[in-house]
C-alpha cells in the first residue's frame, strides 16, 4: 500500500502536535510554578548588574521580549512567534550569549554522538540478535542471551560510572572530563582534531553502545525466532538454498522490520539517557549544557535545550515513520 496522502498528513499533524505540546508546556510550566521564576530571573540579572554592563537595558529588553505586561494570550502568541524564529532570549549565566547560540554550540557534539552510537548499536544488535536465534550459530553466540539481558537492563548512566572509574581513573587511558581541553583543540577537520574528538567521545559512546546493543539484540532475537518458524522459511531450506541466503534474505530481512518501529519508539529514551551520560563525562553536547544551565538557574537555556531536543527527536521519528512504508509494503495504513 505504501505512502498514502492520508498517512503522510496524519504523521505531519502528529509532528506539529508534538512540537506544539512541548512548546506550550514550556510556556505554561514557568507561569504556574510557585515562586514566580520570571521575577527570579529578572532578580538574578539585577544581582549581576554590578558585573554586567547595560543591565537595565537587558531587563527592559526582557520585559519587552517576554511582554510581561501583556495579557496571557498575547504573551502566548508572541512566545510561539519567537519559537518559530528559534528565539529563546539571552542566556543568564553566559550573558551576552543568546540561549540558542549555546545550544547550537553543543548540538553537533550530541548529534554526532547519538547518530554514531544509535546506528552502530542498531546494526550490531540486529546482527547479533539474529545470530542468537539461528540454530546453526555456534553455541557460544546463543549463550550470549543472559549477557545481552544484563547489558540491556542496566541503564547508561550506571555503565558510564563504571567505565569512568576504570578507564579514566584506574587505568587513565581516557580523560575523565572533556570540555576544558576541547576548547583548546584546533578547529577544522585536521587529523589532530579528529583524533581529539575520538579521544573525548570514546567513553560516552561506549556506555551508550553497551546498553543499546543488548536491547536491540534481545528484540531482534525474539522476532527472528518467530520468523524462523514460518512456513516460507522451511520451503526455502527445502529448496536447498544456501543457509546464508536463507538467514539474511528470508530471515533477517523480515525480522528486522518491527525493530525499525522499535527504533522510532526508543529514540526519546536514547536521548534522555544520553543527556545524563554527557553530564557524567562533561561531554560538551547539549545535555551537559542543560546540566550547567540547571545548576545556574539559566531558564532560557533550559527551555532552548528542551525544545531543540524534542524537535530533533520528533523529526527523526517522522523520518523513520515516512521511510517505513517503503521498507515494508505489507503495512496498511488504513485506520484501525
Amino acid at each position, binding site marked *: 500500500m505504501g505512502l498514502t496522502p492520508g498517512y503522510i498528513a496524519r504523521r505531519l499533524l502528529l509532528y506539529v502536535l508534538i512540537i506544539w505540546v*512541548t512548546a506550550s508546556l514550556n510556556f505554561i510550566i514557568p507561569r504556574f510554578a510557585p515562586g514566580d521564576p520570571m521575577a527570579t530571573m529578572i532578580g538574578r540579572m539585577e544581582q549581576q548588574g554590578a558585573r554586567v554592563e547595560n543591565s537595565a537595558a537587558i531587563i527592559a529588553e526582557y520585559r519587552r521580549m517576554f511582554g510581561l505586561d501583556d495579557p496571557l494570550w498575547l504573551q502566548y502568541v508572541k512566545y510561539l512567534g519567537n519559537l518559530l524564529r528559534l528565539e529563546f532570549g539571552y542566556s543568564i549565566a553566559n550573558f551576552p550569549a543568546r540561549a540558542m547560540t549555546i545550544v547550537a554550540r553543543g548540538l553537533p557534539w550530541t548529534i554526532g554522538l547519538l547518530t554514531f552510537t544509535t546506528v552502530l548499536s542498531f546494526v550490531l544488535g540486529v546482527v547479533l540478535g539474529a545470530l542468537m536465534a539461528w540454530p546453526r550459530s555456534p553455541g557460544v553466540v546463543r549463550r550470549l542471551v543472559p549477557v545481552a539481558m544484563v547489558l540491556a537492563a542496566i541503564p547508561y548512566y550506571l555503565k558510564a560510572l563504571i567505565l569512568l572509574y576504570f578507564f579514566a581513573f584506574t587505568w587513565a587511558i581516557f580523560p575523565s572530563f572533556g570540555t576544558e581541553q576541547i576548547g583548546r583543540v584546533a578547529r577544522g577537520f585536521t587529523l589532530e582534531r579528529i583524533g581529539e574528538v575520538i579521544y573525548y567521545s570514546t567513553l560516552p559512546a561506549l556506555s551508550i553502545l553497551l546498553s543499546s546493543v543488548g536491547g536491540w539484540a534481545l528484540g531482534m532475537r525474539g522476532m527472528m525466532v518467530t520468523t524462523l518458524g514460518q512456513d516460507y522459511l522451511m520451503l526455502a531450506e527445502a529448496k536447498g538454498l544456501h543457509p546464508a541466503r536463507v538467514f539474511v534474505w528470508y530471515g533477517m530481512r523480515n525480522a528486522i522490520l518491527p525493530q525499525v518501529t522499535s527504533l522510532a519508539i526508543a529514540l*526519546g529514551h536514547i536521548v534522555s539517557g544520553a543527556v545524563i551520560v554527557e553530564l557524567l563525562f562533561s561531554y560538551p553536547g547539549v545535555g551537559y549544557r542543560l546540566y550547567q544551565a540547571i545548576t545556574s*538557574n539559566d531558564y532560557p537555556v533550559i527551555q532552548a535545550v*528542551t525544545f531543540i531536543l*524534542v524537535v530533533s527527536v*520528533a523529526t527523526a521519528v517522522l523520518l523513520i515513520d515516512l521511510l517505513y512504508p517503503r521498507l515494508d509494503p505489507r503495512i496498511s495504513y488504513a485506520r484501525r
Partner: protein
Amino acid sequence: MAGLAEQVLTQVRTLPGGRLARRTARVRNGPLVVGVLLVGALVVLGLAGPLVVGTAGLQLGGAEFRVPPSAAHPLGTDTTGRDVLTFLLHAIIPSLVIGLIAGGAGTLTGTALGLLTGYLRGPVDTVVRTAADIAMTIPSLAVLVVISAFVRTTSIELMALIVALFSWPYPTRAIRAQTLALREQVFVQLAKLSGRSEVAIAFLELLPNLLPYIMAGFVGAVNGGILASVGLQLLGLGPRHVPTLGLMLEEAFNAGALIRGLWWWWAPPTVVLAVLFLGLFLISMGLDEIANPRLRRQRIGGAP
C-alpha cells in the same frame, strides 16, 4: 475465564509451532523467579538493614571523612563523615517507593484509559491515542527537567508524581491493544446480550483477563520511574533531605568520588541499582511470557 484460557491454548497448539509448545508445556519461568529473588533480597535488605545499623551513621561529621572500608565502617565513610553502609541501607526503600508511586499512578491511569478507549473507541479513543503517541515521542527527561527546574521538588512523593506524567502511555497502549482483541470474544458478546452496561463489562468482564498485562506494565513502569528519578537526581533535581540511591550517586559524583578513587562511596549504590534494574527487567520479562503465550513459544524455539 477458564473457557478463554482453554480457547487460547487450543489456538496456540494449532499454530505452526504448536508441536514445540506442547512438548514443553511445563515452562519454567526462569526470568520471573530470578527477578523476584533479586528484588525481594533488596526489599528485605532495605527493610531490615536500617533496624540493624540504626541512624547514627547518617549524622554529618559523625565519623572521620573518607575512611576506606574497615571493621567499624564496612563500606567506609563519605566526604562528610557519614557511614556509607548506613546511608545505603536507608536509601533502598525510599528509592523503591519513588518507583512504586510513579509506576502505580502511571499503571492505574494507563489501565483505565486503555480499557475505556479500547472498549468504547470513538473520538475519545482518537484523542487518548494521539496523546499517548505524543507523550511517547517526547524525550521525557527533557520535559521532566523543565518541570523539576521550576517546581523545585522537595519530597520523594512529589518527584514520583512528576515522573508519573510519562509513565502512563505504555500501559495505555498495551491495555488498549489487548482490550481490542478481547472485546470480540464470545463471553463479551454474551455479557452484552445479558444486558450488562458497557462500563460494567469493561471493568468486570475484561479487567480480570487483563491482569497479567497490567502486572507486566506495572513492573515496567516502576522500572521506568526509578530510571527517570535517578536521572533527575543526577542532574541535581531531586529532594535532598531523604536518603535515596540517586541522591547518593549524585553526591558521590559531585564530590569527585570517581576521580579521587573513593570507590566505596559510588560503587555500592551503583551495584544496588544495577541489581534492582536487572531484577525488575527480569520480572517484567517473565510476566510478559505469562501474559503472551506467543512469547513463550519464541523463547522455547530460541533455545532448542
